């Protein structure tokens, strides 16, 4: 019965959503004024989940930076007498097969994950912004070409392509960063292009053009600041996605190489001992989960704080 009372006249969106455009749907209003920074923070602060996410991200960054200070152990110190010890007073998260302290390795794993996540997202966002700006600002042939290339990239299963490339050129942290970065730019390009398309018609852009500004200056000084918000939100969530991708690749043996501490590698290491030493698998697994979750919450919080109209 409840359905009848809720009938306001809103027609559902018709037609097919274009591929990849399951977007965050932000800031459609033309030339809407950017919210002042203080307002954004005030709204963000009121969102409990977002604040929890931010707290976790802060803790992760600190853990990664201060790993040598926080733990008395060397992440690579092998102690075969202490093989696969359960969590306890000395080894908080227990030890792995080689007797390495898992708490320490999870901390250093945060270093690896955040490095890969952040640098991969910087690459993906840079490519996406340039592609989106060129396609949206110039339109015409450039637009068609760039969007076709985007379509083709989107037509591949992401993880498979990453595996193929990494197996062919050899695995290392650098390779993983570049590959994840190069496979993640498409959504940024689409998102930014659609924002540029609407912002470039606004009066102040016309004014800048009339005043004789160069295209580069118009794009970077006038369009970018007004079109970047959805990209920032997406990039935040993308860090979590990149962390997840790195963990999956490392788990499969197509990512980070031992003895570097990486959560995916630790899970792979623990799989043989699920029956006797489940801690080997669950602590790094939980670390991946918490990290991804935190970036999702921060991203959601940012989205709501940047555009209160959407709530």
């Amino acid at each position, binding site marked *: *019965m*409840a*359905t*009848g009372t*809720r*009938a*306001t*006249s*809103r*027609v*559902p*969106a*018709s*037609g*097919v*959503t*274009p*591929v*990849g455009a*399951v977007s965050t749907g932000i800031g459609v209003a033309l030339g809407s004024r950017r919210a002042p920074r203080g307002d954004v923070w005030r709204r963000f602060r009121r969102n409990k989940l977002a604040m929890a996410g931010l707290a976790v991200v802060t803790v992760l960054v600190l853990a990664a930076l201060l790993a040598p200070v926080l733990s008395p152990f060397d992440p690579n110190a092998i102690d075969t007498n202490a093989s696969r010890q359960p969590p306890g007073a000395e080894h908080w998260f227990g030890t792995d097969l080689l007797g390495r302290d898992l708490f320490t390795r999870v901390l250093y794993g945060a270093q690896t994950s955040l490095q890969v996540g952040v640098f991969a997202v910087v690459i993906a966002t840079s490519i996406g912004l340039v592609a989106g700006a060129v396609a949206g600002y110039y339109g015409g042939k450039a637009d068609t070409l760039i969007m076709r290339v985007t*379509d*083709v990239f989107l*037509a*591949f*299963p*992401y*993880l*498979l*392509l990453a*595996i*193929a*490339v990494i*197996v*062919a*050129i*050899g695995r290392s942290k650098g390779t993983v960063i570049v590959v994840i970065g190069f496979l993640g730019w498409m959504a940024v390009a689409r998102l930014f292009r659609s924002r540029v398309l609407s912002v470039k018609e606004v009066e102040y852009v016309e004014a800048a053009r009339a005043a004789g500004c160069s295209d580069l200056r118009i794009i970077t000084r006038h369009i970018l600041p007004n079109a970047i918000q959805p990209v920032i939100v997406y990039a935040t969530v993308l860090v*979590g996605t990149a962390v*997840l991708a790195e*963990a*999956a690749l490392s*788990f*499969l*043996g*197509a990512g980070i190489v031992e003895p570097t501490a990486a959560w*995916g590698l630790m*899970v792979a290491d623990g*799989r043989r001992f*699920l*029956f006797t030493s*489940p801690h080997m*698998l669950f602590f790094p*697994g939980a670390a*991946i*989960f918490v990290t*991804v*979750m935190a970036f*999702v919450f921060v991203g959601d919080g940012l989205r709501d704080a940047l555009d209160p109209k959407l709530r």
Partner: protein
Amino acid sequence: MGSYILRRLALVPLLVWGAVTVLFVVFFVMPGDPVQQLVGERAVPETVRANIEARYGLDRPVWVQYGRYWRQLATGDLGESYQNRREVSSIVADTGAASLRLATWAVLIEVVVGITTGVVSAVRRYSFVDALTTVSTTMLVAVPVFVLGYLFQYAFGVFTFQNDLPEWLRFPVQGIGPDSWTLFFLPTNGQWRYLVLPAFALASVSTALVARMMRSTMLEVLRADYMRTAMAKGLSERQVVLRHGLRNAMIPVVTLIGLDLGILIGSAVLTETVFNWPGMGTAIFAAILTQDAPVVLGLVLVLVVAYIFINLLVDLSYGLFDPRIRYGDEGAR
């Protein structure tokens, strides 16, 4: 309608060409020495190197190799293993069916469970079920599928055994078991006990995404005028929701299911590895461990091409759900 289908079909050769070319570039042109990979860690004498290069045509110019690669693919030759000279096409023949069965069940779970929970959650908004759905779908998306797989294994394969819980809660967690099926994908002879855990693990993330999307589109549809009309003419809530609501809310969900197949294929590699399910994913994992590049690339190519064709089918199926979509119109793209 015709012109849309034609345009969509025309995209297929382009995508297949793109896939083959990308993998060719990855394999033949990028840094990395195929001869060294073939031989292993040992040093390679010049004569041996020359022989190997001649055998695989590596001494020829790139475009000649590219043409040769295409000719091989055209005859169904996907390359052969560096490790044991086994042909990739025979690996596909041995493992393809197992992968297809697991993936089919995962998609079934995704569609049935995802849509049901989404609809229930929308109709009973703010109820306990809705809250539970929202929390669990949010969390599931952040759990790596391989960690979830091991959680399942621990819960049903270790915990239930260690605590003497009833028989029906205990599941085998490794391998495919009797490998016994009828009508290709219906499990028989207790096969289902081996199928349940990997199928649910593989379906997990997609199911969460479908449930969320279903909930939000259903909420939107519930507010539509035609829903009020349907209520007003005296249909039961059940009829209104299922007949008028579901069909209209399905369109974005079908789009999502199509888009999500790419992620599902990636997850399948992980899930099969976790459960030791003898499919193409496990074969890819084995090949990664032995640095067997041709096997990895051959299997990836097969999966990518399969994905391209499945996506084509999904795109063409929109018309079944929404008669308003006329494929010829500009709005359809």
